[in-house]
């Protein structure tokens, strides 16, 4: 009886066809999963993909303009500078006032408790390692960094690097009296999308640019 059932099961043409065709959609699904994994771990974190998906400026954001001789009023969340680092593939990174999640999706962000260029203090700028600051980790000492602000150009030189834990905010502390551009991102970048507990910073000293601290 059992043997008969088994024979009829094996002779069922529908089942034969089902098992014959089933591997194709399964392999297709596996391929899609593999493509997603490849995209997330290899393609998306690469700076070349970042260049393709470059954040165009939000047209609703008003860029403040400065009157000659006056330090401009820079509204929170507005773009106030464009950042370029010598030797980086990524060019013209927009720098916004503020560094919340929404801002960091658009470009680099300046911490609200830090200074603007030319104010003779610490300028703290952060951006994502998977996009704008992907090349920060491989930036050598001596590299020139330019900040084209709405009130004039500034040039800095990388003089040091720093690796610090994400719970340690002491490197960000304001320090007036000397102009320092402090650019940081997640470290190390090879971890791709994994949560990173370290941060790496470039410490840059001013080479050129107007000093506004005496005028204010």
């Amino acid at each position, binding site marked *: 009886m059992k043997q008969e059932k088994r024979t009829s099961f094996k002779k069922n043409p529908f089942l034969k066809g089902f098992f014959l065709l089933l*591997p194709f959609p*399964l392999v297709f699904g596996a391929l899609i*999963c593999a493509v997603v994994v490849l995209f997330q771990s290899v393609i998306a974190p690469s700076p070349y993909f970042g260049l393709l998906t470059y954040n165009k400026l939000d047209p609703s954001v008003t860029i403040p303009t400065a009157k000659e001789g006056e330090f401009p009023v820079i*509204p929170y969340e507005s773009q106030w500078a464009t950042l370029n680092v010598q030797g980086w593939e990524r060019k013209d990174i927009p720098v916004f006032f503020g560094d919340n999640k929404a801002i960091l999706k658009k470009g680099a962000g300046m911490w609200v*408790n830090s200074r603007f260029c030319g104010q003779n203090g610490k300028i703290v700028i*952060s951006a994502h390692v*998977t996009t704008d600051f992907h090349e920060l980790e491989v930036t050598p000492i001596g590299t020139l960094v330019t900040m084209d602000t709405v009130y004039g150009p500034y040039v800095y030189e990388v003089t040091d690097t720093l690796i610090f834990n994400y719970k340690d905010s002491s490197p*960000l502390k304001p320090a007036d009296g000397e102009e320092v551009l402090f650019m940081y991102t997640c470290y190390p970048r090879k971890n791709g999308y994994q949560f990173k507990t370290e941060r790496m910073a470039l410490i840059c000293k001013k080479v050129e640019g107007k000093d506004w601290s005496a005028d204010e």
Partner: protein
Amino acid sequence: MKKFVAVLALCLIMVGMVAMPVSAEPMHKEAMIEAAREHMPDAMFKEYLPLIENVLSQISVEKEQADQVIDCIEESRDFFKEYKGNSLSEYEHHEREFAVEMVDRICEILGLNAVYTHSDDPEHHNDVVLEIYNDAGQKIAEMDPDAVKKTNVPETAAAPVNYTYVVLAAVLLLGAVAAALVSKKFAAER
């Protein structure tokens, strides 16, 4: 000569009247900053000076407002005397309440709105995020407990998805192999 001097004096007075409202405002702001410098502990003042100046740079301040803010700072001198650190988490509950009230009062005087929300970061679940809005409802500052930002990816939930897709791909492949074996068995027994 007398006429010339009189005209010159009149011109100077007129220029002064026009220029005064423009130049007085930074003085009011400076007076408030000076009061903070005088009464706040030095470490706290230096820690928050860029934030204070960045907020003040985005608003206009009248003399009356500046005087009220200075009064408010002077009234808080007992709080500043008991300096325990620059973070509110280092203070007792009643001290924290006092500090929040002080910030609220100063914001109210300056026509600002301070909004306190909880951090959406699981690691800082109970920490407070301070957002300051101007009278037009535009955000002019935001301070969250995480000064050091998460700068790995724009979307933080991406990491577990990676492993889900790897496991799913493996299961699908195993299923395909199993289905191919069954199909082969059917073919062999034809």
